[in-house]
């Protein structure tokens, strides 16, 4: 049975578990990871005959699929941290980011914040993630290494936040909350903002999304 809220011991288990998992897992250099993402994106851009936006969107989908596969494999272990509470997703998201990026994760992403529906202008629950330093955009020369005017649905650095949104969606589906999550990058370092920001919207599944 899915719990309404995480208790102290579950959170303690999550905190210990993430350190254990990180210490035992195989790691790689983040600049290498960032360079791989760039190399693949540029190849997709060539395949799509210069359509940078389509290249970025396609790679984002492929990355998110990969993240889903990881979650599927880890589901048995992390479902101990699932609850119906949307507020608990803050804890789960922090744990997931620690597992992917290790103890330095918050150099690149600030602590994700849940904003209840009554505190948002749209009346839709939201999850806000700010990106003080984007591991993907770092090192890029806007307009030279990537044509930012051609971006479409996703911005280049949205990968990680999109993967996180996918995790939160799978949790909502598992616990039986009827939400359809959608991510939107509202600020992007590559587009000239001082820091990135992504918002995950929790739209009720049975209702039409506000335009």
């Amino acid at each position, binding site marked *: 049975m899915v719990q309404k809220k995480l208790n102290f011991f579950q959170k303690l288990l999550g905190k210990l578990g993430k350190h254990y998992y990180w210490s035992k897992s195989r790691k790689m250099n*983040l600049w290498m990871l960032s360079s791989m993402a760039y190399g693949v994106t540029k190849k997709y851009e060539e395949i799509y005959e210069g359509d940078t936006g389509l290249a970025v969107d396609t790679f984002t989908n492929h990355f998110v699929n990969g993240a889903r596969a990881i979650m599927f494999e880890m589901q048995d272990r992390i479902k101990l941290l699932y609850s119906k509470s949307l507020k608990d997703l803050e804890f789960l998201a922090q744990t997931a980011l620690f597992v992917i990026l290790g103890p330095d994760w918050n150099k690149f992403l600030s602590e994700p914040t849940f904003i209840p529906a009554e505190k948002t202008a749209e009346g839709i629950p939201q999850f806000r993630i700010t990106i003080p330093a984007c591991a993907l955009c770092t090192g890029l*020369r806007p307009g030279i290494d990537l044509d930012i005017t051609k971006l479409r649905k996703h911005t280049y650095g949205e990968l990680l936040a999109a993967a996180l949104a996918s995790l939160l969606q799978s949790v909502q589906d598992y616990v039986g909350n009827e939400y359809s999550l959608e991510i939107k990058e509202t600020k992007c370092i590559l587009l000239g903002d001082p820091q990135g920001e992504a918002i995950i919207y929790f739209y009720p599944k049975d209702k039409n999304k506000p335009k």
Partner: protein
Amino acid sequence: MFLQNSTRIGNIQDVYKAQGLLMVVKYSLPDVMGFILKKRGPEQAEKDLRDIGKTIAERILMVWKPKSTNPVEVLNEIKKKFFSGKKVRGEVLERFGKAPSKILIHEKDCPVCPEEKGEELEVSQVHYCSAISGFTEALLNYLVSTKQTLYTKASCKTVASVGSGDKDCQMLIELKYGGE
């Protein structure tokens, strides 16, 4: 919004000092491989993977340079610096004088290929980890261009890949010397 800016964003050193989960690459690659294969066919896909490796090498050289010029040692430096895992083994197949001119690299712990049996590519004409040969070739030829090596040209080719159904990953490195 600035449309073109020659200043690089952020601090590369901060990213270079950080780590991420290797699993992220291993789990994203099947989709990437499938996409490139579908769009380009096996022959071009192999070239594309090598190109990706070269692009990665250009970015890596922005922050890191190999200390050694010996190809086997260069590969082990890369393994140590950028991935965790076992060292590669080099088998010298031919020599030019005393210097190795053909080396077969044996990789038992490929950072790119799937770890579990049954996750290999269905199309065996493409070597799953070909990007590594493009990457290595670019690094070795960077060393050539900076005149640090006795060899004057390096060519690398992945000849076996766990992700394509082979027992281990193998890369053939050919080194040319002078006017050879």
